[in-house]
């Protein structure tokens, strides 16, 4: 409920909203006079500017944080849209339920999960978050109140899932959870020495494991280009583990240093060490470190310094994936600008139908880049060339710089989508990609 000027997770670009409007009850608050534009703001975990509204009003939706209904027999949960996934997990895990899809942080709101149609390590089995949304309520500045399900107001459902918060204010959400026997994960780790080895491993593991993701050493080049560690997991079966996982203690990065602590030298050494670090091939781990390795290091985005950082996440269709990924990794390694956080996984065929949803069949690569100014923008622009040529797309939730031209190419349904935008809503992101 903080009312200080909110920022996005990448700490770039900076933005100054004119007005902050805290939401408290599940309805549209009284909006300020025109012509100011409004945008719902959840927990500020998207990286770029989809959650920003420079010069406009932010509807602070975190205040909508009440549970509405939970049936432990069916695993159907209804809650206001500002509830965090972490709050949901705290409630449901002890009762034998888990989120059907979870991204790499639990510090996001339900509304944000829908607005960005987030995905997780189980996309190849379960699709994106939107695939498990049974219903939500959309309130519009016009006073309309739409109950949206995959069957009822289905066009509004498809516009709002992945709709970047632009179609109106989501007040509550109903989701289907998945059953678990305990809070533990059976995890397997395998080192791979090249991209081709990854592709072979992936085919083998995806068939057996619902959760798969790979860490990539983006500083490696030449013969070892695309080397990394394959991580696969499944919820532990009953009887394997009875005791609850130990409490984790969180550390906080106290402030943002003037320059990024993530740089060429630290990345090369960290990655080399991390790659060679001995690790158990198979073992049991609590679900938190498996799904949310960074949630324990609070405010870790500060490590990138005061200028913030970019994340680049693209998806490349299967046919073009091998060549395009090689090219992207080669360009990053040559630039020396990558970071420790680089992950690769395959998206399956299941989609939520969201008009602007990012997940689509193919391989998705995500990397962080400390903001070094024009040099970084040039590199990311050159990665866009590869992604465009391969017929891929870049993830708006992670973006702060793609051109309008690229966006419209990546999301050809943008024109159809724009008919559903609330007349009083807009965002820094939307204004940016509708230009040029």
């Amino acid at each position: 409920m903080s009312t200080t000027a909110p920022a996005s997770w990448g700490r770039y670009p900076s933005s100054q909203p004119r007005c902050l409007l805290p939401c408290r009850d599940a309805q549209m608050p009284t909006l300020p006079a025109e012509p100011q534009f409004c945008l719902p703001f959840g927990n500020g975990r998207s990286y770029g500017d989809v959650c920003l509204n420079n010069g406009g009003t932010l509807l602070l939706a975190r205040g909508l944080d009440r549970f509405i209904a939970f049936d432990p027999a069916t695993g159907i949960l209804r809650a206001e849209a500002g509830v965090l996934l972490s709050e949901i997990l705290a409630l449901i895990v002890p009762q034998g339920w888990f989120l059907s899809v979870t991204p790499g942080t639990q510090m996001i709101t339900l509304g944000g999960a829908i607005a960005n149609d987030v995905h997780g390590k189980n996309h190849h089995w379960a699709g994106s978050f939107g695939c498990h949304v049974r219903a939500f309520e959309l309130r519009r500045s016009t006073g309309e109140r739409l109950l949206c399900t995959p069957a009822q107001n289905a066009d509004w459902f498809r516009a709002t899932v992945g709709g970047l918060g632009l179609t109106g204010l989501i007040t509550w959400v109903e989701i289907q959870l998945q059953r678990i026997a305990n809070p533990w994960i059976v995890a397997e780790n395998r080192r791979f020495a090249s991209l081709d080895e990854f592709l072979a491993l992936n085919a083998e593991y995806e068939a057996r494991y619902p959760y798969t993701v790979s860490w990539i050493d983006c500083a490696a080049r030449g013969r070892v280009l695309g080397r990394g560690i394959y991580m696969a997991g499944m919820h532990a079966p009953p009887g394997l583990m009875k005791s609850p996982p130990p409490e984790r203690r969180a550390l906080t990065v106290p402030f943002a240093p003037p320059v990024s602590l993530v740089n060429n030298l630290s990345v090369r050494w960290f990655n080399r060490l991390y790659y060679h670090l001995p690790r158990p091939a198979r073992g049991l781990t609590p679900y938190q470190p498996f799904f949310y390795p960074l949630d324990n290091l609070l405010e870790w985005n500060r490590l990138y310094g005061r200028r913030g950082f970019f994340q680049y996440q693209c998806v490349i269709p299967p046919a073009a994936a091998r060549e395009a990924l090689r090219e992207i990794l080669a360009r990053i390694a040559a630039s020396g600008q990558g970071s420790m956080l680089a992950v690769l996984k395959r998206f399956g065929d299941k989609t939520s139908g969201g008009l602007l949803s990012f997940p689509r069949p193919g391989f998705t690569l995500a990397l962080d880049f400390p903001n070094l100014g024009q040099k970084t923008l040039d590199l990311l622009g050159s990665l866009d060339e590869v992604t465009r040529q391969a017929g891929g797309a870049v993830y708006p939730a992670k973006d702060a710089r793609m051109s309008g031209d690229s966006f419209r190419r990546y999301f050809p349904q943008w024109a159809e989508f724009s008919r559903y935008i609330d007349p009083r809503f807009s965002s820094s992101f939307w204004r940016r990609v509708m230009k040029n």
Partner: protein
Amino acid sequence: MRNILIIGATSAIAEATARRFAAGGARFHLVGRHAERLAAIARDLEIRSGQPVTQESIDLDQLDQHPALLERADQALGGIDIALIAHGALPDQNACQQSVTATLAAIHTNALSVISLATLLANMFERRGRGTLIAIGSVAGDRGRQSNYVYGAAKGMISLFLQGLRNRLSRKGVQVLTVKPGFVDTPMTAAFEKKGLLWAQPDRIAQGIVAAVERGRDEVYLPWFWRWIMLIILHIPERLFKRLNL
């Protein structure tokens, strides 16, 4: 499991405190003014606690309703273990200065109705030889300042009143806890610019309240550093203090 009565249950601090209690196992009866919001909070707490929650919406300014109100709460819970009195309203100081009616209304809501409820609850707890009574005071009640002395006077009255109650009930097995929050980021303080280290989130206050109950404390400043800030403020000589722009 404890039976907890929350008066002023739609206040942000009360809601956050209830959630903390719910996590440890509790049954709630909620009292507040805003019926719709009360219902939403009750539903939320039912899910968090796994227990049915009862509620009543009422205007707490009607003091003559208090005995029956507490009777119903006690019945709904099957005996109150903990009572949290959290209602209040931040009056417009300037408006109060121009209007005796507004001043007395603010005192009525923030002090007299609390004293009425505290008296009745204290007697109930005294008869039973157990119970925990919590009321939300404020750092504003420690010293009168031109910017909010009407609110401060009401909160100061609560603080002094509870002190007496505590003294009276100390050997009767009853805990009387005065909570003095500093600046809290809530809808009540929506008009303020909330930047800086002095502002706390309601959950931080809630955490402090639950800890103070468990430890059997008498009076807590929340967050803790306000105790030291107020110690300094209380020791500034009046001759100097009266000239400060506070």
